[in-house]
């Protein structure tokens, strides 16, 4: 019985969340470096709030939303059945372990998603930042860029979302937010891991003042 209404509930909830985000934040997308196109992409963005995932999902055009999967932290988003259902059924999220556990490769689920042709939304800081500047990027982005050279890497800056729902608060307040998408970057042949990650981080920060 539960299976029968589940897709409808997910669609209804998705629609509701989209309207909610629009009313609260405007969900404005600003495409400065590239047009919204249905090619395989990795969007990487700054991470300030759990609402980032919803925000960037809402800012994407409808056609891209269905082929783009956000990466969600497994420990937070699978804590309760409701959270897990929302991230799976509505956002079609890819779960990733923030801490390396045992032998398994934490990037395995991401590689699987990319291999099957989906685009993904990645927060390379790994955890939410507190200050103005994003923290140093983790190496996942580098490994994926190395393994999937044909996938376009698009930097994105999510502005203001931490004011909508600061850490520890439950009720969001309406404040206009925007997601700025910049020009794609590429992994240069023979580029060092750290150099590439710093360049990617700089590309994200550069969008802040655009």
């Amino acid at each position, binding site marked *: 019985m539960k299976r029968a209404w589940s897709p409808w509930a997910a669609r209804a909830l998705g629609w509701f969340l989209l309207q909610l985000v629009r009313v609260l934040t*405007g969900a404005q997308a600003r495409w400065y470096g590239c047009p919204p196109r249905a090619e395989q992409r990795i969007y990487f963005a700054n991470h300030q709030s759990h609402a980032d995932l919803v925000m960037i999902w809402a800012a994407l055009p409808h056609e891209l939303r269905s082929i783009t999967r956000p990466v969600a932290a497994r420990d937070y988003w699978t804590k309760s059945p409701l959270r897990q259902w929302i991230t799976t059924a509505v956002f079609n999220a890819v779960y990733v372990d923030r801490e390396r556990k045992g032998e398994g490769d934490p990037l395995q689920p991401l590689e699987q998603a990319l291999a099957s042709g989906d685009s993904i939304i990645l927060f390379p800081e790994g955890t939410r930042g507190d200050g103005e500047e994003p923290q140093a990027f983790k190496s996942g982005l580098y490994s994926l860029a190395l393994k999937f050279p044909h996938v376009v890497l698009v930097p994105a800056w999510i502005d203001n979302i931490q004011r909508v729902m600061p850490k520890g608060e439950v009720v969001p307040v309406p404040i*206009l937010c*925007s997601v700025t998408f910049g020009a794609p970057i590429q992994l240069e042949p023979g580029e060092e891991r750290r150099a590439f990650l710093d360049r990617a981080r700089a590309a994200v920060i550069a969008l802040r003042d655009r």
Partner: protein
Amino acid sequence: MNQFLRSLTPSQQVGALFLAVFGILVLASVAVFLLTLRERRTAHDESWQTGLSDFRHLLGRSWVMVIVFWIAWTSGEVMATVLFALIAFLALREFITLSPTRRGDHRSLVLAFFIVLPLQFWLVATRHFDLFTVFIPVYVFLAIPVASALSGDPHRFLERNAKLQWGIMVCVFGMSHVPALLLLEFPGRNYEGKQAFLVFFLVTVVQTCMLVQHLVSQRRRRPPSLPGISNSFHWDNWSWGVIAGSTLGALLSFITPFKPLQALVTAFVACVAGSLGHLVMKALKRDRGVTSWGPRDKSVTGANGLLDRMDALCFAAPIFFHSVRWYFGA
């Protein structure tokens, strides 16, 4: 003609007014469309082109505003109040976006958006006139700093609270006086059911004042009177705007419960309050280093700089409402 209009019921009269306004807009749109056709054949200088494109923007905005007011009128007083509550919500959202807030302000913001705003418009819709005029200046004025103090963050405390209170005052308190006009009663003046005219009167007079001021300042490039605050404001242009608005008010006295001289004075008061209020909001914008309240780029939400268009009305409405109520005992 006059006899015929007087024989109509109040709601038919309001309908006729909207018909007239829509007619004028259609004529203006057709004229602009014909001009754009002609423009391709004859070469014009650049200032003419920008003038035309400015006018088209203005026309588009007027269409939106008139349609919004028309929907508000046809759907009754309650829907009109809801509509203005929505406008107040969007305006406050723009105001707060550009005012830096800290984490400690979160509870106050929740209070402002989800309790103060709906409550204020509910008070309007249920005609609690005595409470609705003091609810924000007295109760909320004290409640907001308490909510901020309870969060335990003293950093720039006065500044943060002042900004939030200003936003509520302008966007919520000011805007809520527009639907309140729909509920005014003028005993002994046979004005029942015609209050929509009063909203039309206020909006037309204030917007005319702002428009004339804008057009005069574009025609005559004078050095600004207050360069620190506005690049376009000049006392001469301002006087022209106020004179035009007040004169139009006197001419429109037949749709109001006022005599022509009374209409002139109320229009004058509304124009002065609106245009100077616009100046105040310009000063606030300058302080934040922006030119408009909207998002930095063209927005997809349609809420692009709403407050820029509404701020004059937000200042004019409470002054107009209270002076009319005081003088006419409405």
